[in-house]
């Protein structure tokens, strides 16, 4: 297995699938049908293949595994290098899992330009897997940034009424953050002479430079996470994007930021990360409390879930910057479970949206009378989002809070209010949509989940419980890598301490 280019296959098979779809010609009906099935089978094959990644993953080492390296721009010592460790591997799996689900979820709801839609999704899968697997700064940046193109088109072409506004906002916000990161990346190359990520992790940047580099990366990741106050693109993008677009956005794209903090900010700029921890804590607490309150006031279901995403990602950033094993593992866990749960919640909204074409909470009520299965599914994910023990959400939030508590009890106390507020707005939403009398005329004939929709939710339900009941299967994977990350930071900090002690 050592020479089998598994990661490259994962990255580029979707692209090949996209090429196939591009080549499909004929009547619109036939093209649409074929495009859907090619996309589904391609992404499904990628998912199966990605399971090999997990099966063959060695949990005893913090090294990057499944590495591949091809010279790309030899003059600059830039190569196409990919590999995964315990931090990134699970994100690759999350991506490969959500893509076929998205394609399945848009089976009926996307009827226009199906071919282009499927191509966009497959290209996006390529970019996302590549982003998590990249071990070269330039390669990372290319994948990181290239996601903008398909996502921009997905929101803009297949989105709702204000899609143009949302697409532009999404594009420009993200671009603004990332171009600063591009400069930081060039400065890192200039300082270290390489763009190789594992090498850079062991490179010590001067303390002054670290601050600037950290800020530039922060500009990019904070927009992606998104952190308060640069989160405003997210509700717009989510509301206007088609269901599957929201799913990918919440499920995977938001993880780019959190992953970036773990992959770059912490190991490469440990001193700056220490300095800026209070800033992160402050912004995260605001995010958790403020956006939870905002979520409470929403009348649009998708917007509510979007704000809840911001709040949940606030937990992630707090956990990351506790720089404790529990905090970081909790953050990763929270990202994974949020990836599953928020994706599922958007799908849940998508189900009724496909039937009634309204996202307004007021348009619903009493759905339990006509859609019992739907009510059950909704409840499972709603409770997972709240963080009920037994679901994935609980483990992540719990670990994060343990980590924070060790560092700062006040931060822990404020962050914990987010759990309560989360329960408030989610239960309130659930009550208004599902319970009560079925009085609305438009809902009288609404049908329950179809078999295809059941199929979409089944793996997610399974995963939510698995993550909640037996977290070890995920935590074991990341454990060694997280410890290694903390060791690296400790070493760097000690080295810097020596340096300052030596230079009075």
């Amino acid at each position, binding site marked *: 297995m050592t020479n089998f280019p598994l990661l490259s296959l994962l990255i580029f098979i979707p692209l090949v699938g996209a090429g196939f779809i591009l080549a499909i010609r004929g009547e619109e009906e036939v093209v649409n049908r074929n495009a859907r099935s090619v996309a589904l089978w391609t992404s499904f094959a990628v998912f199966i293949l990605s399971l090999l990644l997990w099966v063959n993953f060695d949990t005893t080492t913090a090294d990057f595994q499944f590495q591949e390296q091809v010279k790309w721009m030899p*003059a600059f010592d830039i190569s196409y290098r990919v590999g995964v460790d315990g931090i990134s591997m699970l994100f690759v799996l999350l991506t490969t899992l959500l893509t076929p689900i998205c394609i399945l979820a848009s089976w009926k709801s996307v009827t226009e330009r199906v071919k282009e839609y499927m191509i966009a999704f497959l290209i996006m899968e390529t970019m996302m897997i590549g982003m998590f697997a990249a071990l070269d700064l330039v390669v990372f940046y290319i994948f990181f940034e290239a996601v903008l193109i398909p996502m921009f*088109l997905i929101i*803009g*072409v297949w989105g709702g009424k204000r899609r143009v506004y949302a697409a532009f906002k999404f594009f420009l916000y993200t671009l603004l953050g990332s171009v600063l990161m591009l*400069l930081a990346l*060039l400065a890192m190359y200039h300082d270290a002479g390489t763009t190789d990520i594992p090498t850079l992790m062991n490179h010590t940047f001067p303390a002054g430079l670290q601050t600037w580099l950290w800020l530039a990366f922060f500009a990019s990741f904070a927009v992606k996470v998104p952190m308060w106050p640069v989160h405003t693109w997210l509700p717009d993008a989510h509301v206007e994007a088609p269901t599957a677009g929201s799913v990918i956005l919440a499920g995977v794209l938001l993880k780019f930021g959190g992953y970036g903090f773990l992959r770059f900010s912490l190991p490469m700029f440990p001193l700056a990360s220490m300095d800026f921890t209070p800033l992160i804590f402050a912004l995260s607490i605001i995010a958790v409390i403020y956006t939870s309150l905002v979520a409470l006031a929403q009348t649009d279901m998708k917007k509510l879930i979007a704000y809840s995403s911001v709040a949940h990602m606030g937990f992630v950033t707090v956990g990351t910057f506790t720089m404790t094993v529990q905090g970081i593992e909790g953050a990763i866990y929270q990202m994974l479970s949020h990836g599953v749960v928020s994706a599922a919640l958007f799908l849940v909204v998508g189900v009724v949206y496909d039937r009634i074409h309204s996202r307004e909470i007021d348009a619903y009520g009493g759905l339990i009378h006509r859609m019992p299965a739907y009510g059950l599914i909704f409840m499972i994910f709603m409770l997972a989002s709240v963080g009920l023990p037994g679901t994935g959400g609980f483990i992540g939030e719990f670990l994060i809070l343990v980590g924070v508590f060790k560092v700062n009890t006040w931060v822990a106390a404020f962050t914990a209010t987010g759990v309560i507020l989360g329960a408030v707005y989610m239960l309130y939403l659930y009550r208004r949509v599902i319970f009560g009398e079925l009085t609305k005329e438009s809902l009288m004939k609404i049908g329950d989940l179809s078999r295809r929709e059941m199929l979409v939710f089944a793996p997610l339900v399974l995963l939510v419980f698995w993550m909640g009941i037996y977290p070890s299967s995920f935590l074991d994977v990341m454990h060694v890598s997280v410890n290694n990350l903390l060791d690296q930071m400790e070493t760097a900090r000690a080295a810097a301490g020596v340096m300052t002690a030596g230079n009075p």
Partner: protein
Amino acid sequence: MMSSVPNVVPALPEIFLALAAMALLMLGVFQKTDEGDGEVRAFRLISRLGMISLVLVMMLVATVSGATLTTFGGMFVSDPFAVFFKVLIVLASLMALILSQDYLENQKIARFEYAILILLATLGMMMMVSAGNLLSLYMGLEMQSLSLYVIATFNRDDSRSTEAGLKYFVLGAVASGMLLYGISLVYGYAGTVDFMALGSMFKADTHVPLGLIIGIVFMLAGLSFKVSAVPFHMWTPDVYEGAPTPVTAFFSVGPKIAAMALFVRVMIEPFGDLFQHWQQIVVLISIASMLLGAFAAISQTNIKRMMAYSSIGHVGYAMIGLAAADEAGVRGILIYMAIYLFMNMGAFACILTMRRGDKMVENISDLAGMSKSHPLVAVALAIFMFSMSGIPPLAGFFSKLYIFYAAIESGLYALAIIGVLSSVVGAFYYIRIVKVVYFDDLTEPLDSPIGREVGGIILVSALFVLLFFVFPGTIVDGASAATAALFGG
């Protein structure tokens, strides 16, 4: 002892091109144009032969590549730097000539002089990049400019076209005057116009008379005009809008690349050691161009005007490389220009498909729903627009990557930050085109099918821009070699 007959080998491509242009002129004059479609037939014949000549010139350029050769007493230099740019220039001319065929015939302005003017302009541009002396520089520049003034007015019954040509001529003449005045000042204070002699003089002597600096500033102003950098850009939008579209495509690429090459050579070879005297001016020009290019383009409704501002912005980015004034910077410029050539040609080829009936349409809103009526052109246009806004993995990203690396490496952090921020502003109007093409509903479809030649150019350019990331090596290595030659000499 100097031999009485100069070595003509380094200048062989230029000599051949000059002879070819004159021969074609004779041939064209003696065609029967008075009967029926005689004029169009003559146009086709001369254009085809012109294209063949350009291909032959390209081959000749390739044969003299590799070494640094000087001739005519140092007035003419053929080094890898010149060869790199000559390839780009000939390519630009060839593409422009191919693009023009259908357009000129449709507009009923198909006259054979067009191809000859393009050839002569190409000759001028090739001489510009090979100049080893301020006078041969000026000769090349004027040869190019005069041809371009005429081409700009080629649609002579159209008042916009003649206006464009006249504006271009008057302002161009002023710029040439400034350049010449600068040259005369430099000559007066330094006593020589030879690049080598000037270069070694400044290497030895760090004291520079003020008059010479003023001379350099005048030259900078003149050259900035030619590359349409702010604050000497005013002519650009009007000329781009008024000139026939394929001519605009040519203007935005060929002369710009040639002038940029000239700019780099003049600043680096003779005046490279004085860079602390001119660096701040270039930084200022660069910042102003990037910002103006980004902000002024937003409010444009005419796509050719928008492309004019976009080209001003691109010049601003390229100038970052010049401000860095080192190998990394110049290499960045070379790569930038190579990629810019394909991006811009492709975009203009897409603009050339904007036709309804006999009329060309030029409003951005006319592109609405193009993704339905011309799906392939729409994809290509989206590729060019995303590339111009610098989104990876498209070629435009790499051009910015190398330029910004040069800025970071030279410590020009402010310039780099302003550059990336203005590129975000720029992204707005580029993706607005994508928005019109993809998000807006079809109102009135553009004509189809598009011409074979135009389609070919679009395809070639789009593939280049899309697949550049797979094989960046060739162009990057070529640019590195060319830059090394410039700095080694």
